[in-house]
């Protein structure tokens, strides 16, 4: 998409070569392309229009730079402006202790999951989090939060009898304080912004518990509706931030720009998967790239940094560079990758890979690969060449797999070594082609 937007812009600006300056007239077609691109990324039409006007104002009068194409020049301006808009405000949470956070949003947007995710994150940051179930409508909503709280070892309060949400919130707050919690998170029921009764209910809850943060939880794939939703929730609750969920999908996330423009509140976190660990701080440049269709490599690297032992990673990179990589290293690598979250959410962050389906049960395959390597002796792992038929049979038995699978693994490992050597020799293009060939054949997950 990035390419295609650049291409479209380039062709719309073809006749600009000789022209010295960008003007309203000579940019008109290009800006129309930009607007269409934003609309197809679900940016609200009014927001898109204003955005394009602002970009136009910035562009007009600029010299057409010789070294880049006018298309690239405009893309850069658009990207920078998007980053600036999306990034206004801080992703930091209020420093208050105890920190009280109210979660609100439409049905199914991810409030309960995000409550658990935020609890986990705050726990990692040294808080003693406590979650309170204020959704008394959705069947088993209280159970859902309780299960997640147990799993993450967070404090929990729920009331399966009462329907008085503000009272439940107050009782939960008291329970949390009694338990010595210093991060208190309130999960609420999904509600439509036009449901006057339920909006009134959450307003009362807000008044009762006096939260330090009121976070709107919005689905990253939300459409034009985002504007109505954001406006109404902001009017009712004076939001302090936004959590954008389900970014592990391939929605472009333009709704975030709409919500940001309407409310002005900062985007604080993004949800990147169903697992409680799939939660990241918000980075505007990544979302800007995504809205423009450029992939999200930075998020991936970031997640790797958070979860992977830095020294270990450097050692590995060095080995990869030298193409000196044995099965023991590979095992270590596999174990690291597992910490990153689900394979698909990793793939989704690689440009051009988000749509790529992983081979059949990639995760299970990873576990089998691990079992095979673990059944090898240290010597075998370091010098896989010694693996003759007998040894392979022994390993297969040990790992509970067929010899065929051991053979497959060895073949793939050899292929990988070959690729690394190529990479070392600068044959990156050639390697990409090889990888294409491996896709779907159960190539190495994690590489």
């Amino acid at each position, binding site marked *: 998409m990035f390419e295609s937007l650049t291409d479209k812009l380039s062709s719309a600006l073809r006749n600009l070569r000789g022209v010295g300056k960008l003007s309203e007239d000579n940019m008109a077609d290009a800006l129309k392309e930009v607007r*269409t691109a934003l*609309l*197809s*990324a*679900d940016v*609200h*039409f*009014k927001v898109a*229009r204003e955005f394009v006007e602002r970009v136009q104002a910035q562009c007009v009068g600029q010299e057409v730079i010789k070294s880049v194409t006018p298309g690239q020049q405009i893309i850069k301006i658009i990207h920078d402006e998007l980053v600036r808009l999306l990034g206004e405000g801080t992703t930091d949470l209020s420093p208050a202790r105890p920190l009280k956070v109210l979660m609100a949003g*439409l*049905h*199914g*947007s*991810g409030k309960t999951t995000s409550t658990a995710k935020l609890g986990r994150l705050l726990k990692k940051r040294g808080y003693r989090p406590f979650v309170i179930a204020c959704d008394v*409508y*959705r*069947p*088993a*909503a209280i*159970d*859902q939060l*309780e*299960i*997640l709280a147990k*799993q993450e070892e967070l404090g929990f309060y729920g009331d399966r009898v009462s329907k008085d949400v503000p009272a439940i919130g107050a009782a939960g707050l008291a329970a949390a304080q009694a338990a010595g919690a210093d991060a208190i998170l309130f999960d609420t029921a999904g509600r*439509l*912004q*036009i449901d006057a009764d339920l909006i009134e209910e959450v307003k009362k809850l807000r008044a009762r518990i006096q939260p330090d943060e009121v976070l709107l939880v919005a*689905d990253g*794939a*939300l*459409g*034009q*509706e985002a504007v*109505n*939703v954001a406006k109404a929730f902001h009017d009712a609750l004076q939001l302090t931030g936004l959590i954008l969920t*389900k970014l*592990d*999908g*391939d*929605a*472009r996330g*333009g*709704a975030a720009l709409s919500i940001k423009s309407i409310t002005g509140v900062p985007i604080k976190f993004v949800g990147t998967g*169903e697992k409680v660990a799939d939660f990241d701080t918000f980075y505007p440049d990544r979302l800007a790239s995504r809205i423009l269709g450029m992939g999200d490599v930075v998020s991936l690297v970031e997640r790797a940094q958070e979860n992977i032992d830095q020294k270990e990673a450097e050692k590995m990179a060095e080995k990869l560079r030298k193409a000196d990589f044995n099965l023991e290293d590979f095992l270590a690598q596999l174990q690291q990758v597992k910490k990153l979250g*689900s*394979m*698909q959410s990793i793939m*989704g962050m690689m440009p051009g890979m*988000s*749509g*790529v*389906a*992983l*081979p*059949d*049960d*990639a*995760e299970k395959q990873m576990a089998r690969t691990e079992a095979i390597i673990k059944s090898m002796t240290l010597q075998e792992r370091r010098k896989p060449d010694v693996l003759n038929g007998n040894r392979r049979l022994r390993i297969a038995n040990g790992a509970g797999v067929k010899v065929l699978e051991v053979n497959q693994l060895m073949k793939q490992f050899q292929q990988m070594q070959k690729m690394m050597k190529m990479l070392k020799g600068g044959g990156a293009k050639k390697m990409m082609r090889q990888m294409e060939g491996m896709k779907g054949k159960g190539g190495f997950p994690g590489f």
Partner: protein
Amino acid sequence: MFGLFKKFKDGLAKTVAAITEKTHGLFGGRTIDASSLETLEEALFTADFGVATTGEILTEIKAASRKDKELRGQEAAAIGAAVLRRVLTGSERALTAAPTAPTVIVMIGVNGSGKTTTSAKLGWLLKQDGKSVMLAACDTFRAAAVEQLKSWATRLDLPIVASHTGADAAAVAFDAWQAAKARGCDYLIVDTAGRLHTKGHLMDELAKIRRVLQKNDPTAPHHAWLVVDGSLGTNSIEQARVFHKSFGLTGLVVTKLDGTSRGGAIVGIWRELGLPIYFLGLGEQPEDLQPFSAENYAKAVFGLET
């Protein structure tokens, strides 16, 4: 086939009210001119119809306003509704029973789209119509998903087959079919875990559910519906494409239309994939599931009386 559906004849009333409010100024009594055309174009975008349909509607309204300089907003709205109705011709579909019971319906969709609630509502609707229904709790992934459907089953007094979180979803589907058969149920409604269409391994799990159902009845599932959240934007089309390609959908249910969103993405899905629309979800209560009517939908979107 549903006698009781008559009760819902004024089905879209709530939607109509919400949408009329929004489009009122736009399609009021004033005549259409260049500037109102532009506003109209933008308003059409708010319905998430997509570029093709929006373009067609605009073209026809423009052509009409060229012919008739006095063209009024209401007339323009009628033209828009007519285009929409034309585009949606054939998209209505009523639920049909398979020749041999149980008729198996699988609910599929991304996270939080409304699958579980729709399963419950549909069960209730069929029950009102005198049919016997079995529910299958095949979301064995999300925390408390099993409890959620169980709690609906208790509330609506519907039989259910469920296991525990972490169980094999396909095995639950298998058992549920057996149970439905043994009890002589007319319908088996299979609720599945929410999954993003970008996740290959989760798509494979769906394929496994199908394979296992087919061990019991090679013609099952008879219906595989994508449950689409009406408030989502253009990504719904991509979802439909991928689910359809990998699983083979037979139709759509669009939920959460009791809000102000108009679920226009279904128009794009219908145009591109020809997937008919069975029901609309208009709330969280059991009775808030209504058969889709292109006529009513088109009128509702343009704020015309139904």
